[in-house]
């Protein structure tokens, strides 16, 4: 049910990937996502797949669990692929009424689909293996240079980590309220679009009320502990690169190198 939404959640197992410095994972994810848009050949995707597969294997997060996260974006996936298939101009191979499928459309639809899947799996892998606290620390350090330009780096990463932390809490709350309203005979499944939208009122109102209540409580708790932003704040456990992290950077470089060589020179 609602708990199938796994994007952005931490998956608590111990693995090499979990132990990596969050900066490595952030950079790695960013590089990986960019790399997906650098080439336009199936061999390139093969390399990207091998790399992703290896990281998944190392992370010890079950594949089924990762793929379940895709369920939440399946509509988006369909639309993207659909638009690409039907709306790309080119050599027509099938036509009915106003719909036509082109060779180029098929090709770019497949590319977009694969890219999107890799992108989502790749970035959710980062949150699966990194606790929100680590993620914030990493982000804050990576964005550190922008502080000079008076960007509120600390605040932004704090907001991000709170948002991430609240995803599971709000999902749990949704689950609870849904059950409580079902116990009063609410029906969230049947009916047409309008009836379905209406049936969300008993769910959304309490959910908003609870989100505001929680936000209030959290703000109060932070203030009670004298939180006043990032100025002059030190860390209990400052991030430090270890050997493992340098090796990981090496691997990422290796991936990029292989991608470049293979798509450029070997099988184009």
């Amino acid at each position, binding site marked *: 049910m609602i708990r199938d939404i796994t994007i952005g959640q931490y998956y608590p197992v111990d693995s090499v990937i979990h132990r990596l410095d969050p900066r490595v994972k952030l950079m790695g994810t960013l590089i990986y996502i960019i790399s997906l848009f650098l080439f336009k050949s199936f061999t390139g995707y093969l390399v990207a797949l091998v790399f992703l597969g290896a990281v998944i294997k190392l992370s010890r997060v079950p594949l089924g669990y990762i793929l379940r996260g895709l369920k939440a974006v399946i509509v988006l996936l369909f639309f993207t692929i659909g638009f690409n298939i039907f709306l790309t101009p080119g050599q027509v191979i099938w036509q009915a009424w106003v719909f036509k499928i082109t060779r180029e459309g098929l090709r770019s639809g497949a590319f977009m689909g694969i890219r999107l899947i890799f992108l989502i799996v790749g970035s959710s892998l980062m949150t699966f293996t990194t606790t929100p606290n680590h993620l914030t620390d990493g982000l804050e350090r990576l964005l550190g240079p922008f502080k000079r330009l008076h960007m509120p780096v600390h605040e932004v990463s704090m907001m991000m980590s709170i948002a991430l932390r609240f995803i599971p809490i709000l999902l749990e709350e949704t689950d609870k*309220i849904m059950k409580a309203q079902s*116990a009063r*005979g609410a029906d969230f499944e049947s009916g047409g679009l309008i009836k379905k939208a209406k049936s969300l009122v*008993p769910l959304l109102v309490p959910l908003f009320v609870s989100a505001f209540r929680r936000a209030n409580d959290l703000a109060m708790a932070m203030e009670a502990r004298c939180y006043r932003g990032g100025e002059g704040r030190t860390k209990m456990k400052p991030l430090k690169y270890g050997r493992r992290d340098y090796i990981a950077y090496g691997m990422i470089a290796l991936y990029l190198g292989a991608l470049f060589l293979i798509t450029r020179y070997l099988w184009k």
Partner: protein
Amino acid sequence: MSIILDKVNYEYSKGTAYEKKALRNINLEIRDGEFIGLIGHTGSGKSTLIQHLNGLLRATSGAIYYNGQDIYDEDYKMKDLRSKVGLVFQYPEHQLFETTVLRDVKFGPSNQGLPALEVDLRAYEALKQVGIGEDMLDLSPFELSGGQKRRVAIAGVLAMKPEVLILDEPTAGLDPKGRDEILDQIAKLHQENKITVILVSHSMEDVAKYVSRLIVMNRGEAVFDGSPKKVFRHYKELERIGLAAPQVTYVMNELAERGVMVSTDATTVEEAGAEILQWAKKCGII
């Protein structure tokens, strides 16, 4: 008529790292008109168990019969079960959503598809039963105090006229006065409406006074099941699983150990008092 649970097991998030066995081999029979206390330490599986009784959670294995019908049968109507087994969740005030108290209470019965007049009648009746005065009917539920909100939420379930009423820690977070009021009202409901009531709590003191049967949960198992007197005889074992018998049980056991001839079965202060007085009279002390 009754609810029967046959070897019910339940596991949360099966097949992930969050896998959690919450119920282990639960066998129970809940008969009509009983007033049951379901007790256990936090995390012992009380809330999980009661959500099975109206079909919100589906047992991983085992069977549940409501009035002899298997609720997991293909053609069993879950919606009917939900209106027969009324479930008041913990912190039910968090589920209020309507613009007025009255409209919120009407949500349940109108989902049952009753005529408007009947819905109104039931809502008024339920609100009266939980002690919400007519001056509050048109207020926004969000304007009420914590205790009042909770009573409105309970009325929301009562208005569906369930045959079985289950309340998950209805007194959590209330002050002693609010707690006693709610418990007294529940006891009155049980007597007047002749419905089965299951009261979930982690406090013995709360329920000992009211219920006729206690079911004690520990780590997903039902470890004791019987009258409060019978269950409190195991007060040493209860302590080991993080619970305690009512204070008077300790007093009476201590007295008995020191040679005072009193029965250790008293579960309320009144009973204990009567018992001690009787002993004192017998010995000629008073």
